[in-house]
């Protein structure tokens, strides 16, 4: 017999919001299933039923804008505030900016993406062609009083084109619930760097879902940084759909006292001869929790897939927790797939060596933490962007 799920105030509020938005089927679905608990594999370490206790009212249109959370010198700026795509100046060569109705993500059995699809009214669209010169920054905010806002962007990068895209998530210092989506399709031999920086307010909840489609020969590098919000979850859905497609999916959880950050990847190698190197790092201090889940699905025909999943954690306090879970689901028989995980504290011998040369202990610790992160930041070639990201990381290290 089916036992009805007991719904909490967060679920009831979401059901009301879905119903008001006309998403009746979604409202019914959520009434039946409730938010996912740890028994749902994809949410094993991020039990939303436990963690998401309240949901604020849907955010009204923004009337004021806080200062940008991240400034990248020379970048072309776009903004979505409280879900509304803002007017912008003249686009650089090779960039067509527009907007369209509705959300951007493919249908999947996942509550975060479904909520985003049901509640997002409009999306930013970007068509990129050729070698796009300035860094493109999509600045997403939730402004004003505590609000629930959803936003979306759909980006097409034409064949043989290249671009660097950075997305930031921030806003006013309130207990917002932000749920953001990106659909990024790379044409044949396109080369894209996609960086996302979660700098959401300290009391906020931040959800982001990025869906990537890689055509033949496409090359993608990501750097997903979770530094803000009390509770955050960034979901990555890369789809390798053409031979020679390759992605360096990298991500970083930076968590301090009271924070819970989750990066969950669910990748599909759909065709033969594709490769990926997902590398996730987490640094946890105080009483905090960082989660990394990596799922690699290799389709029956996807022979010669080469995928190596790695997660590395650094715990700077006794109460910090880092939770990692790989899932490999391989249906082809001629593939090279692997996963690895390391977790620990700063190496005592390295610290002694550095301090024995006169470097103060705190400085030596910072050097070692920087060394741990160099692998993620060094490949970002754009100087201004590299500097901006380094500043975010240094700010976190300095305890800001």
């Amino acid at each position, binding site marked *: 017999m089916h036992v009805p799920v007991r719904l909490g105030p967060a679920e009831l509020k979401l059901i009301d919001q879905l119903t008001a938005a006309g998403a009746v089927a979604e409202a019914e679905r959520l009434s039946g299933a409730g938010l996912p608990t740890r028994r749902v594999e994809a949410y094993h370490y991020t039990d939303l039923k436990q963690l998401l206790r309240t949901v604020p009212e849907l955010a009204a249109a923004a009337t004021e804008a806080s200062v940008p959370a991240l400034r990248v010198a020379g970048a072309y700026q776009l903004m979505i505030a409280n879900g509304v795509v803002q007017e912008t100046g003249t686009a650089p060569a090779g960039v067509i900016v527009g907007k369209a109705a509705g959300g951007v993500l493919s249908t999947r059995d996942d509550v975060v993406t479904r909520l985003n699809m049901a509640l997002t009214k409009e999306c930013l669209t970007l068509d990129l062609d050729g070698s796009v010169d300035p860094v493109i920054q999509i600045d997403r905010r939730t402004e004003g009083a505590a609000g629930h806002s959803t936003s979306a962007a759909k980006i097409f990068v034409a064949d043989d084109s290249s671009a660097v895209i950075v997305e930031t998530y921030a806003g006013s210092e309130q207990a917002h619930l932000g749920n953001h989506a990106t659909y990024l399709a790379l044409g044949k031999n396109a080369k894209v760097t996609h960086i996302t920086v979660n700098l959401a307010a300290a009391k906020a909840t931040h959800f982001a879902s990025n869906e990537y489609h890689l055509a033949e020969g496409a090359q993608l590098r990501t750097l997903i940084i979770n530094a803000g919000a009390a509770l955050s979850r960034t979901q990555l859905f890369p789809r390798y759909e053409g031979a020679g497609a390759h992605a360096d999916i990298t991500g970083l959880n930076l968590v301090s006292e009271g924070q819970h950050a989750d990066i969950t990847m669910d990748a599909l190698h759909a065709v033969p001869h594709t490769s990926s190197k997902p590398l996730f790092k987490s640094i946890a201090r105080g009483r905090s929790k960082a989660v990394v889940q990596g799922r690699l699905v290799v389709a029956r025909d996807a022979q010669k897939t080469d995928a190596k999943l790695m997660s590395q954690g650094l715990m700077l306090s006794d109460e910090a927790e880092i939770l990692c879970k790989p899932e490999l689901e391989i249906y082809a028989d001629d593939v090279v797939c692997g996963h690895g995980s390391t977790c620990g504290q700063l190496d005592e011998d390295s610290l002694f060596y550095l301090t024995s040369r*006169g470097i103060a202990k705190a400085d030596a610790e910072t*050097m*070692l933490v920087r060394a741990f992160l160099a*692998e993620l930041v060094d490949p970002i070639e754009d100087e201004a962007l590299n500097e901006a990201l380094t500043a975010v990381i240094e700010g976190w290290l300095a305890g800001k």
Partner: protein
Amino acid sequence: MTTPMLEIRDLTVRIEEREILKGVNLVVPKGEVHAIMGRNGSGKSTLSYVLAGKEDYEVTGGEVLLDGVNILELEPSERATAGLFLAFQYPIEIPGVATMTFLKAALNAKRKANGEAEMSTPDFMKAVKEAGKALHIDSDMLKRALNVGFSGGEKKRAEILQMALLKPKMCILDETDSGLDIDALKVVSEGVNALRSPDRSMLVITHYQRLLNHIVPDVVHVFSDGRVVESGGKELALELEAKGYAGFDEAAA
């Protein structure tokens, strides 16, 4: 009498429940090079780590005076800026830390402790280049991460380069000859000899006499079972080589 550069008085040290140093007494006057010889497990390396301030050891008694100042309560970094330098037997590889970044941080830490301004980048580059030349250290080696992928000889030369840059007043060389072929041993020894000066003392720890052919000590101490059992001139090293350590064990008993 002038203050010795290093004076160790009745030093006793434990690691967990085991007593490793059992009352070490040793005086190294200014400008002198002393050697400590002893077999593996006699406590030589423990002594070097304790002097540099490694945490794993529990000092249960005694004093260590560097130029008259007791250093046992100081952090490793404070001992270093006070002028102590330990050349490691096994220098640590630190991926992600550029050698030059490390050298600059170490040099500026010392200058800061001495109330001096930070060294400018061109001056720093020049100093490293100059010090590196004598040690056959090329710029390729300096571009790599600290000690990562260095051969045994490169690691030891890098240690001596740090010594040359930091200009310590008390150098401890822990088994600097281990892992070196004869050519590398010569380069390293020449580097060390070039740093001998009336204001600098050295304590060379080894269990082979061969290093002492290249770095000729003023005094040789024989170390056995956690203490110095005999001290003498450089000819003591030859005697040890001939008789073996067994001949000195009675003295320790």
